[in-house]
């Protein structure tokens, strides 16, 4: 156990997860919350309030997930992949593009 604590590999793993949880995770959740606020079929105040609360819950779940997934690389890949749908939604809504 203590030998494991001393390895630099372990330290990098922890540091990477901390970065993923703080910067990466918060960024992803912010993107997700913005997309949610923009797309919820509610008056704007209600949409924002709902998106904010869902955002906090999602962030907590994300942090827990980040410290549970075995492979650090996989975490970053998933963060990147998960950012695509809300990003697409934002682009569509902001440019008011229509698909059909």
């Amino acid at each position, binding site marked *: 156990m203590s030998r494991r604590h001393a390895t630099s590999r372990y330290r990098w793993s922890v540091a990477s997860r901390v970065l993923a949880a703080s910067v990466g995770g918060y960024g992803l959740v912010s993107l997700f919350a913005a997309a949610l606020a923009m797309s919820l079929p509610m008056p704007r*105040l209600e949409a*924002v309030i709902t998106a904010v609360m869902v955002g*906090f819950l999602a962030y*907590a779940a994300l942090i827990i997930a980040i410290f549970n997934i075995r492979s650090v690389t996989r975490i970053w890949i998933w963060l990147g992949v998960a950012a695509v749908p809300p990003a697409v939604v934002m682009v569509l809504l902001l440019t008011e593009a229509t698909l059909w």
Partner: protein
Amino acid sequence: MKETFRQSMAWLHTWIGLIVGWVLFFIFVTGTIGYFYIEIDRWMRPEKALASIELTPQEAADVADAYLRRGALEVESWSIRLPDHRTSSVLRISWSTGSGSRSEVREYDAALRRFREPVPPRETGGGFELYRMHWKLHYLPKMLGVLIVGICTMIMFVALLTGIVAHKKIFADFFTFRSRKGQRSWLDFHNIVSVTALPFFVMITFSGLVFYPSLYMPTAVQARYGNDYDQLEADLYPQTNQPTPTGVAAPMLPLRHFLSEARRYWGEGAAGGIMVRLPGDAAATVEIGHSGIGTVLRNADERLHFDAVNGELIRQETPRRSVPRAITSGLYGLHEGIFAGWALRWLYFASGLLGCAMIATGLVLWTVKRRDRQSKAGATSFGFRLVESLNIGTIAGLPIGIAAYFWANRLLPVGMAERAAWEMHSLFIVWGMMLLWASFRPSGKAWAEELSIAAVVFGALPLLNAITTDRHLGVTIPAGDWALAGFDLTALVAGVLFGVAAAKVHQKWTVRVGATHRGRRIAELGS
């Protein structure tokens, strides 16, 4: 991370709990105290009248009405703050002439049955400043403190969830307490205080996050509002329309009438304040604001607007009752507990104390768990010593600092410049001293010493009060002013509890040190 999900969660819980534990302890202590900030405000302003006679809202409205009609008709507005169950004898009225450029304030002395200018109390931040640090911290630029508190709150939320997951048999273990088994006992202690008020902790933490959406989740706000915070304000808090003066005089109905109307809409005792705009003018309006008492959904934004001359309702401002708004309103209401009566308020206080105990036991558990490993290694690591010093200096030291704040309130000269700021400086100077003390003393001794200091500074507070003011127990109990008496009594109880803790620590560490020849090694370790 670790082998199992549960182990990973325990690992995460341990480390994030450690990193923000001391700040969270500060937040919990100031928040717990904050439930009684009005009473603490009163204790810290001993020049003010005792709360002896109860005025009903109707009596208050009549009294204010008579006074204002006699002396203040040619003004722009009247403002009346009605007494409630926590400030029952304080009826404050003020009137303002022209855009709030000049306003005069009077308070009603129920014992003498007349209005007078408020007795200028000593300059102090009172209980409110202690409470305000709960979300703003201190000495930091405006929103930085709020941001730091928000980050710690989010981490606390994760710590709660991971703690629940890591705790294997949460119901079965609730009745487990293995005393005098070192690490096991601390773990059981930590589990019991945490689980007992767990719903409260989850509520208080999540609701804390929801207080500042523009700061904590700004992208969601900006997605719909851009940078138009005025629009956000307008959606959240409907605007009041200012009437324009007609110049025609018209008699107003008695204020009592509008209180009765408010009672029809909101029920008994819910009116918090009355504002009269353009009194005596034909366009005069009377606004009744909700006190927030009597309902969990924070209704303090709700207002009733009446025509002052014919008594008809012009507008009822209610925040839109959509489901999301009801949820946030409910969360704010539950967090702040403005609606709470005495019994529930003490329950809030007790739950807050359990929260402080949860954090404190968690921090201590961290060192207890590692102390054996440290002693086997022969010398304590810097990190371990740092955590220990921060633990002692904060868990015992912060309460000592807060007591110093109260001592400063009684001892600092009344006319002193920057008096309120210096009361706060006293808190932080003494807390800082306790942190230094803890870093230079062997930990067992430091615990016993600081807990003893805490026992003395709290236990002696009622005595200090008696020496320096005439608002001590000998006066407040006969007069039935239980808020003021309660402060002194609570300080006394706190002193006793700290004393018991100090005695226990002293006994344990004397036994430990004296026990065996190997005890010498442990004694060296402690220094």
